[in-house]
C-alpha cells in the first residue's frame, strides 16, 4: 500500500464520515425487514453480504415473501440497480491506471453515497493510487456500517412479535426512497404510471404486470420529459 493510497484513503474517509450516519437507519430497517419476511439470521446476513444493496434488498423482499418466480425477483433487482450503470459510466475515468482486481472490488462496493462523495475528486486527482484510496475509504466504511447495523436490526427483530407486521417497513423504506425522486415532474409521472399499471395489471400471470408496469413507467417518464421540453437537473 503506497503512502499516496493511504493519504487518499484517509481524506476520503474524513469527507464521507458525517454523511455515513445516514446509512444507519437503512441498515437497521433492512435487517428488521429481512427478519420480518422470515429469514434466519444466517440467511439475512448471507443476503446482506452477497447482495449488499439496500434498495435491491428492500425491493425484492416483498416479492420473495410473496413467493414470486425467481426470474421476476432477479429482473426487479436488476432494474432497481440500473442507476448504477450510469454511476459506473460517470466515475469510470477515475479508475484509469487501477488494476483489474481493484476495479472489480470497487465496482462491487459502488453505492449512491460513495458515488456522490467521490465523483469530483475521482475525475480530478492525477494519482491513480490516491484516487483508489479516496474511493475505497468511504466504500469500505459503508460496507462495514451496512453489515454491522443490518446485524443489529436482525438481532433486534427477534424480540419483536410477529403480529407487528415488520415486513411493512420495507414498503415504508421504498416510499422514503421514492418521495424525493417524485419531486421532479417527469419522475412523478414515471412513478404514477408505474404504480398505476402495477395495480391494474396485478392479475397477469407470473406477476408479469410488475415488469410491464416498470417499462410503462420508464416510457411515461421519458415522454413527460419530452412533453415538458425540459431536462432533469
Amino acid at each position, binding site marked *: 500500500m503506497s503512502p499516496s493510497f493511504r493519504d487518499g484513503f484517509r481524506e476520503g474517509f474524513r469527507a464521507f464520515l458525517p454523511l455515513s450516519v445516514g446509512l444507519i437507519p437503512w441498515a437497521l430497517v433492512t435487517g428488521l425487514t429481512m427478519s420480518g419476511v422470515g429469514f434466519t439470521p444466517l440467511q439475512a446476513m448471507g443476503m446482506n453480504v452477497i447482495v449488499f444493496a439496500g434498495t435491491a434488498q428492500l425491493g425484492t423482499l416483498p416479492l420473495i415473501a410473496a413467493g414470486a418466480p425467481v426470474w421476476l425477483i432477479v429482473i426487479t433487482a436488476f432494474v432497481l440497480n440500473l442507476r448504477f450503470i450510469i454511476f459506473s459510466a460517470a466515475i469510470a475515468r477515475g479508475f484509469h491506471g487501477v488494476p483489474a482486481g481493484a476495479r472489480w472490488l470497487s465496482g462491487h462496493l459502488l453505492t449512491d453515497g460513495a458515488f456522490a462523495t467521490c465523483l469530483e475528486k475521482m475525475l480530478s486527482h492525477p494519482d491513480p493510487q490516491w484516487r483508489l484510496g479516496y474511493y475505497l475509504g468511504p466504500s469500505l466504511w459503508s460496507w462495514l456500517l451496512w453489515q454491522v447495523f443490518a446485524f443489529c436490526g436482525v438481532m433486534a427483530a427477534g424480540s419483536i412479535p410477529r403480529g407487528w407486521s415488520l415486513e*411493512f417497513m420495507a414498503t415504508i423504506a421504498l416510499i422514503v426512497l421514492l418521495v424525493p425522486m417524485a419531486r421532479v415532474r417527469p419522475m412523478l409521472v414515471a412513478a404514477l404510471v*408505474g404504480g398505476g399499471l402495477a395495480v391494474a395489471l396485478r392479475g397477469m400471470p407470473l406477476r408479469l404486470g*410488475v415488469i410491464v408496469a*416498470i417499462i410503462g413507467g420508464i416510457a411515461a417518464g421519458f415522454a413527460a420529459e419530452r412533453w415538458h421540453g425540459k431536462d432533469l437537473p
Partner: protein
Amino acid sequence: MNYDWSLWGLFILLGLATTLPRASFIVLGARAALPESLQKALRYAPAAALAAIVAPDIFVSGGELSLLSPRLAAAVAAVLAALLFRNPWLPFIAGMGVLWGLGHLLSG
C-alpha cells in the same frame, strides 16, 4: 415462512444483478460508452420500479383493490412524514404507528 437452500441461489443471482451493473463501466473503462438517450431513459427506472413494487402492497388486499385499508393510511402517513420532515426515522414511526393503531382499532 420457511425457505430452503434455493434461497442461497437466489441471493447469488441477486448479487450478480447488483455487482454487474455497478462494476460495468468501472471494469470496462474507456472501452465502452453508454448512448446519451439510453442514459436519460434509465434515470426513470428506479422511480418506476419502486412505485410498481409499492403500489400493489398499498392499494391491493386479498387480490381486490381497496382504498380504505390500514396499509394505505400508513403509507399516506409515511409519505407526509417524508415530505414534511427531514428526520429519517419519522416516516417509519408514523407509518408503523398508523398501521398498528388502526390494526388494533379494527380488530378490537
